[in-house]
């Protein structure tokens, strides 16, 4: 293990290198570019033995990765924003074909208006495409998720593609001290990819076929069941990861001072750090505040979340996303799961950080205050409107 000063993109590239993918196909887009630049350099200096394929678009990046996965090898791609949307057809193709491709997505705003900065509208708009979705908070977690994502995606009970999301710029371009494991450790954690979901010259296969109304639903049910089976596999991966690397991750959600909390803020990604600091300040002033960071959006941690917030009298969901005409997509998922699990506390939605707009300490303090006093269902940080 060595300590390095790395950005989120660079840390992720280190994690990918340690995972030994055989085929990497990627197309550049800000703020993802650094991860593919580093991987290209690793291929050049032979620290990574992989085919780096310079595709001419994101659509081809994922199409190529699907082809390589169907050939039976570990693959990697990375993108962001418009690029992720451009490969959207491939997302459902990869999940439907049960190809355990790993992709890093640098969370970035979607046009129009054009904007290169971070929000989470790109990946959240594609929550229903059958990919596991994880959201990293810091560069170390990004590196570690690169390794764990392959373990989970390729597990025979799961065989589902995996998207690791890093907040654009705030995480992709921010430098932190990161522990980079040795290759031998990574190899001890992550086995070589073995699959029978691939071409076979002794027993030829027809893959990615059509299935009519009589059988189609069976394939779709199996996709759903496999995604649910990812829950225990994520736990298994984290236990094994802790045994090898000495870092224990908390599962689908990361809770902070929630045990006795009266007001709990639920969020995802890098903003969780500031939310925890605000919770500490509020507790110092006598308000029992807590924070839940959703590490996974698919599979969705409904039961875990309901368990974590059971002491709260009011809840907030803070997200960098809005589904126009409804509410934030994370909010919709959270409220649905809480209702199904018997949580009756009011839940308010706070939309912030769109197009990379800063969410300040004061903003989060206001989120807690409004949640405690009660507010409208959907609130845009920085915009005061009458209750609609």
């Amino acid at each position: 293990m060595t300590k390095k000063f790395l950005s989120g993109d660079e840390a992720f590239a280190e994690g990918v290198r340690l995972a030994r993918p055989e085929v990497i196909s990627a197309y550049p887009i800000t703020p993802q570019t650094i991860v593919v630049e580093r991987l290209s350099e690793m291929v050049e200096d032979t620290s990574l033995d992989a085919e780096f394929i310079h595709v001419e678009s994101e659509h081809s990046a994922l199409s190529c990765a699907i082809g390589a996965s169907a050939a039976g090898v570990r693959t990697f791609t990375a993108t962001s924003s418009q690029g992720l949307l451009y490969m959207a057809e491939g997302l459902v193709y990869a999940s439907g074909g049960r190809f355990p491709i790993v992709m890093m997505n640098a969370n970035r705003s979607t046009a129009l208006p054009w904007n290169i900065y971070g929000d989470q509208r790109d990946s959240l708009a594609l929550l229903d495409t059958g990919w596991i979705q994880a959201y990293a908070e810091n560069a170390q977690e990004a590196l570690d998720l690169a390794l764990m994502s392959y373990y989970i995606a390729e597990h025979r009970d799961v065989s589902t593609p995996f998207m690791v999301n890093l907040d654009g710029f705030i995480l992709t371009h921010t430098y932190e001290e990161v522990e980079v494991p040795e290759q031998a450790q990574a190899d001890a954690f992550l086995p070589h990819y073995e699959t029978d979901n691939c071409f076979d010259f002794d027993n030829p296969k027809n893959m990615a076929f059509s299935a009519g109304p009589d059988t189609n639903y069976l394939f779709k049910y199996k996709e759903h069941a496999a995604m649910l089976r990812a829950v225990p596999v994520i736990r298994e991966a984290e236990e094994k990861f802790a045994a090898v690397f000495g870092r224990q991750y908390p599962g689908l959600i990361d809770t902070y001072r929630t045990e006795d909390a009266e007001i709990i803020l639920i969020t995802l990604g890098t903003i969780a750090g500031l939310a925890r600091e605000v919770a500490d300040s509020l507790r110092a002033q006598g308000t029992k505040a807590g924070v839940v960071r959703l590490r996974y959006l698919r599979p969705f941690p409904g039961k875990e979340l309901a368990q974590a917030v059971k002491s709260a009298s009011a809840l907030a969901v803070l997200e960098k996303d809005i589904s126009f005409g409804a509410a934030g997509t994370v909010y919709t998922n959270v409220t649905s799961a809480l209702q199904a699990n018997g949580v009756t506390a009011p839940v308010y939605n706070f939309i912030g950080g769109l197009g990379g707009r800063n969410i300040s300490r004061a903003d989060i303090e206001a989120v807690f205050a409004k949640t405690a006093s009660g507010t409208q269902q959907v609130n845009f940080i920085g915009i005061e409107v009458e209750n609609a």
Partner: protein
Amino acid sequence: MSISAKTLDTNEYFYGHKACAGCGGSLAVRAALKVLGERTVAVLPAGCMSAVGFNFPQLCFANNAIISMFAGTASMLTGVEAGLRRRGITDFHAVGFAGDGGTADIGIQALSGAIDRGDDILYICYDNEAYMNTGIQKSGLTPYGARTTTTPAGEHIHGNLRPKKNMFEIVAAHGIPYAATATVGYLPDFLAKVEKASKIKGPKYIHVIAPCPTGWGIPVSDTVEAAKEIADCGLWYLAEYENGSFRLNRDPKEFTSAEDYLRRQSRFRHLTDEDIRVIIESRDKKWEYIRKNWKQ
């Protein structure tokens, strides 16, 4: 050893599918796979051949095969080739079979990218001159004057107003190691080109005319005849691009009647004498260029 009816593989690799009677596309796929053999991975995008051959549980390829995204034939071929090579497998062919729309329209970007990268793949475009799978809509390879369901022939517009996109020369302009045109009407020529391509490293492209009786409006028994006639009357040509130069494989001393070729197909039945004159004039101009500039 050159391919002939006597030496052609008697095994069937594309069998039990539900292609229409007289389908030129399925003939091209079936024949090409007999040349390429069992150690072939076939990539087919959304389109006729994937629609008729991959209906779970009736899967019709005896070799490894996969449906790609519509725009992704070439990019998936790239991944398949790279992945198998990484597994240490080298004695195989990665072949794509895409229709005219899948090649000249939605798939041209990925095709250009794969040729540009120099990937070791064979791309075969079976050209039936319209989006036949969705019900005969105009593609970039629909010929001038053809009636399709999106280029109706009426009083004001006589079918498709644009000529076929010149895919063969577009592909050649990439400096591809090997490109060829063919037609299922001259099957030995097509098979020989597939065999030649299979032995060349890097990207290869074969553009084969494959009539669709349903879309062309001809009897199902006339597929091969129409596919011969299109070359005999000069509205198609048999050629190769190799080592940076073009070669015409077949130079008819005299063309058969283009008018007869056109009038036999219901998609051209509305054409006026003037329309036909325009088509013949454009044919003659093309042949003048070919005979002047290409080797023979």
